[in-house]
């Protein structure tokens, strides 16, 4: 902290000065305990619910009639379904990244937003996990893909990237959930002790597992939390690499590229950052958390967006370069078709949204104009969706065999399923905001503690 202050005296502080533990707790728990819920919360929650209804409807139809309700065909047998899957998994990456990696590298500014980001991860991965099941159209047979002992000695085909996906996404979901919950235990205890409502006390009490902040507990807790972070970091990289392998392992022109795993990871982080911004900026305003989510948080996230967008840009470039360098006519044609073919609009759209738009973050003025940042973050989300769509549907529609070339034409149910999955996410997020501490109380309190020490020392230095 001190070092930081000396190196960058200009930097705004992570927390505004003169915080007090009690006031801080009041503020955070106030978000939850305030009755009645603010109007805008109801607005968002109902929006989420209505989208959730759309999801229910389209899923009902899907399971009743089959994936034929979507625009899928041969050759384009994957389109919106897998695009949404990859998109959601990508969004789910920022949470673990912010929590784990920034924790390991001691970026204490993370404390104010990591809870939010982790929650985002959990719900995003939930959405992601649904699509592989949805895209079968027959959920009752989805369990065939799991390794369960059976008399016919039938096991999954472990060489298939789809099985890797199952393991990766399940592991990722479990670990994220555990990480989220463990990080929340002390705060749940705080809520238990803070809330007056009897039922709330009971529920938070049970959820807090009887946490009482003993020093011995804190010691093991810190270790466990650090270990989880250390495990989650390679995990987060592996998950989207494996998702990238879904495509890299195949022989399809436009998929068969070794650059995919790293460039998918970069894309995932970019989309995740964008989604954190999309959520954090309105919440900050709505709940007046300016003292915790400060301008510096926004800055740092913008920096990360710039970095990852440059990585993604490099990914696009190397894709094109190796298509040419491979000497394979099929790959070259595929690249040319992306740039000039029927999906050119989507390709140039994603270049604009994912590579060019984030570059505006270089300007401090843009970073300070939060509405603008928010819009750009939305634009990046769209761009990342387009990227996956171009890779999946675009490549499939122009495979090896010309006689079967066909463009993908989405139906209304393609869109319904996509919007519906957003319903799951939004509903989940708003329930989380309402029921669980939005900011990691104990870590922020710790931050206050350090800050007090620092201010003390600075005071001495002054004298």
């Amino acid at each position: 902290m001190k070092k930081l202050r000396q190196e960058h005296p200009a930097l705004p502080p992570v927390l505004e000065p003169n915080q007090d533990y009690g006031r801080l707790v009041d503020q955070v728990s106030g978000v939850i305990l305030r009755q009645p819920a603010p109007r805008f919360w109801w607005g968002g929650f109902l929006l989420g619910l209505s989208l959730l209804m759309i999801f229910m409807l389209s899923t009902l139809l899907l399971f009743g009639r089959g994936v034929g309700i979507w625009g899928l065909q041969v050759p384009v047998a994957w389109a919106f379904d897998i695009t949404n899957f990859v998109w959601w998994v990508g969004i789910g990456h920022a949470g673990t990244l912010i929590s784990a990696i920034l924790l390991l590298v001691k970026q204490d500014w993370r404390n104010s937003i990591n809870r939010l980001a982790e929650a985002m991860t959990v719900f995003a991965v939930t959405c992601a996990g649904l699509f592989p099941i949805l895209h079968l159209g027959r959920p009752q047979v989805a369990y065939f893909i799991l390794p369960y002992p059976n008399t016919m000695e039938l096991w999954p085909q472990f060489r298939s990237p789809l099985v890797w996906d199952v393991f990766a996404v399940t592991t990722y979901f479990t670990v994220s959930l555990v990480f989220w919950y463990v990080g929340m235990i002390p705060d749940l205890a705080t809520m238990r002790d803070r809330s007056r409502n009897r039922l709330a006390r009971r529920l938070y009490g049970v959820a807090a597992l009887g946490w009482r902040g003993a020093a011995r507990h804190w010691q093991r807790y810190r270790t466990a939390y650090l270990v989880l972070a250390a495990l989650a970091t390679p995990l987060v990289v592996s998950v989207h690499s494996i998702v990238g392998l879904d495509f890299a392992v195949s022989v399809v022109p436009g998929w068969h590229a070794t650059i995919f795993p790293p460039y998918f990871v970069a894309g995932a982080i970019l989309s995740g950052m964008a989604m954190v911004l999309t959520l954090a900026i309105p919440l900050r305003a709505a709940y007046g958390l300016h003292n915790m989510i400060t301008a510096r948080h926004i800055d740092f996230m913008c920096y990360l967006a710039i970095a990852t967008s440059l990585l993604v840009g490099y990914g696009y470039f190397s894709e094109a370069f190796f298509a040419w360098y491979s000497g394979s006519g099929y790959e070259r044609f595929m690249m040319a078709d992306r740039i000039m073919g029927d999906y050119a609009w989507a390709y140039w759209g994603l270049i604009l949204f994912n590579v060019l738009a984030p570059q505006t973050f270089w300007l401090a003025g843009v970073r300070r104009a939060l509405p603008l940042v928010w819009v750009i973050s939305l634009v990046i989300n769209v761009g990342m969706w387009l990227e996956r769509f171009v890779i999946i549907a675009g490549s499939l529609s122009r495979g090896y065999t010309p006689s079967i070339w066909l463009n993908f034409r989405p139906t209304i149910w393609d869109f319904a399923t996509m919007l519906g999955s957003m319903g799951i996410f939004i509903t989940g997020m708003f329930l989380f905001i309402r029921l669980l501490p939005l900011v990691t109380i104990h870590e922020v309190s710790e931050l206050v503690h350090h800050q007090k020490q620092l201010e003390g020392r600075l005071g001495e230095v002054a004298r």
Partner: protein
Amino acid sequence: MEQGLDNVRSWGLLAEFAEPEQLIAAVRRVRAEGYTQVEAYSPFSIVEVEPALGLPPTRLRYAVAAAGFAGAGLGYFMQWFALVYQYPLNIGDKPLHSWPAFLPITFEVGILFAALTAAFGMLARNGLPRVHHPLFAAPHFERATIDGFFLSIEANDPRYKMPDTRTLLESLGPRSLTLVREEFEDVAHATVAPEPRP
């Protein structure tokens, strides 16, 4: 009144401080007095307290490492068993033991085992979940998760002796000082058959 309190079977003494620094000082002091059954409670982790309490470093990380490697091994074995040993099939004419394709799952299973061990190991060693604890009955203790910093000395400490221990704690200038009783059931029990005076 206090006399009466003294005579009910008590869990220990609980002192509350306003600032972490006071707590740290207090811990150092009581440890110096030779108390062993000492514990500090704080709304966030205060690193300085742990050496003051003389806590040994936790061994959790070794358990995690062991579980991680065990999981990875299990994951690889599962794939080898299924594709090479039990039901070999010609799939795309790939070698049966195509180990590169087995690595992703090996890795994921390893991580899963390690992570679960870390979380549940921590809870187990902390004796959690335990939703019922004498301290929860103590007044003001709810502040331990908000802005209170507590120090407890349990009654089963060999050095624990009334009123010396209390005077010691009072001398540290706590915001409050409480005699924590055993669970209420015990109190009820005590009223039926009160202990004989010493």
